[in-house]
């Protein structure tokens, strides 16, 4: 499970995951997008190589997001699950982590940056920064020390 912390929407969070999604969907494996904050724009996703017929967009209430994500991960029938939980605590994230392990699926959980101070059971924890330039800071990575410096990210519009 990867937890991605955002200062605001639209700072390159999809750019991080779209290449992976493109690879998975080209192999005709299913990707679940649960409660996205905006509508995925098909032309934009397809331009980055994602096969949209393999992408299921699940509309869920605030309280059902974690349930839906866990069901999808545990089922082992989807390759990756993207979720935008509003309220998620340590315990619910741990459940997702366990579900992702049992279902052998990739989980990406997008949360606000203010949760960075809380401990997290995620195997990989990334924080995105929008200013002065787009960059990714690794907060935690299982089995190694996180790199000290941030990794720059190309601006996402081209």
């Amino acid at each position, binding site marked *: 499970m990867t937890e991605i912390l955002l200062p605001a929407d639209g*700072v390159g969070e999809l750019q991080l995951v779209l290449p992976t999604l493109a690879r998975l969907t080209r192999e005709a494996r299913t990707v679940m997008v649960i409660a996205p904050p905006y509508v995925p724009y098909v032309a*934009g996703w397809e331009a980055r190589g994602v096969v949209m017929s393999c992408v*299921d967009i*699940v*509309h869920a209430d605030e309280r*059902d997001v974690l349930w839906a994500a866990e069901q999808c991960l545990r089922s082992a029938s989807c390759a990756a699950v993207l979720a935008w939980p509003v309220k998620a605590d340590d315990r619910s994230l741990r459940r997702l982590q366990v579900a992702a392990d049992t279902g052998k699926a990739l989980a990406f959980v997008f949360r606000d940056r203010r949760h960075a101070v809380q401990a997290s059971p995620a195997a990989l924890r990334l924080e995105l920064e929008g200013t002065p330039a787009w960059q990714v800071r690794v907060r935690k990575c299982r089995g190694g020390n996180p790199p000290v410096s941030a990794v720059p990210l190309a601006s996402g519009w081209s």
Partner: protein
Amino acid sequence: MLWACILLPQLALDGVLRRRPPSDEPLVLVSGPAQARIVHAANATARAAGIYRGQRLTAAQALLQQFVMIEHDAEDEARWHRLLAAWAYRYSAEVGLYAHAVVLEVSRSLNLFGPWPRFESMLRDDLQELGFRHRIALAPTPHAAYVLAGVHDGIAVTSPDILRDALSPVPIARARLPIEATQGLPSMGIRTLGQVFGLPRAGLQRRFGTELVAQLDRLTGDEPTPIDSYRPPDAFEQRMEWTHEIEHVEALVFPLRRLTGDLAAYLAGRDGGVQRFELELEHRSGPPTRVTVGMLAAARDATLLFDCARGRLERLELSQPVLAMRLVARELPPFVPAGRDLFDTRPVHAIPLEQLRERLRARLGEQAIQHLHRTVDPRPEKAQSDVAHVKAATLPETLPRPTWLLASPHPLRGPPPEVLAGPERIETGWWDGGDIRRDYYVVRTSQGQCAWVFCAPGEQGAWMLHGWFA
């Protein structure tokens, strides 16, 4: 030809018991006119207290102070009988209904389901699951199987040569012969079927008529038995009612599991699936509450059907207590099982994608899962839809499109952004009243986000935010 007979000694009682949660309280089915009520059937606890079939109700009440009394319903019993015939149809194409029994021709089924002991245990497991007590026998003729099942549970006579030997020790009273023979033969000193076989036919025919001789011939297979083959109906309908009112949806889960289990058994017998069925909850007054359970594809797995129905039911607010529940399935499309890869490496507890989608839809709503497709319309609001379209043509070269689209554009707040690319004029839509005339730009906001914004043609201000390049 080999016939299996499944004798259902407690059909009416099991039909009542399986609707109720398991319990130990004594229960009695009563029948007969109001002045002379008699016990039609009694469960194990009641029988242990000395109540037996045919007893007068007053005598039963003297034996046991308190028991649950239920009116015996012959129509109800016939319905269970038909359900079991539908279930048996899954194992054989030739199924016949006898009183309190179902017979099925199994000689060809054995090729498919394995040798008789394994096939028999399959039948027994199924009946156990459905909640019916049973006795099973196998014989070369249906009538012999019917007789043997009543005498010896589990007996299997596979060849016609030893059929006579197997039938010989059967007492006349249990040989299911015509009624006058059953009464007359013992008074002649004839006690078993073997003795009847030894009597001269002409004498028997003169004494008891042709019916007895024909019956004996059918028993031994000298004459073929006419069987009205069972044909399953084209719709499934099952109803359950309670003596008390149910006020909470949770209490409906148990009967629901029974109903969906019966539906699955029926569908398996028909080799069909169901895509949509209705649950009707009946109240004391007013119209019944209808819950429609729909699925993406035809299904017939008992767990899946139960999961879906339960998800729909749990979201229901009961306005009135429920007295009865009915499950109606009219559309029964053919069922195409999903193929699984032989070298599938997925974990054992995995559930198939279709079932996952059903489960999500059951809890989150019918429209919860969406697939987006690109259309040929250049207007961002109509550039995609969740209805499958014809393959969209490759679009002309334009500025890149964002990955997030706002459901409706709203003004961009904050200090003026830095323009990265643009403008791209989108001006179209005059034919359906939704015409737009906009200049789209890619801009960078003060927070570092890349945004897709538009403004009126020729201006660079009053930005409306329409998407993010995330």
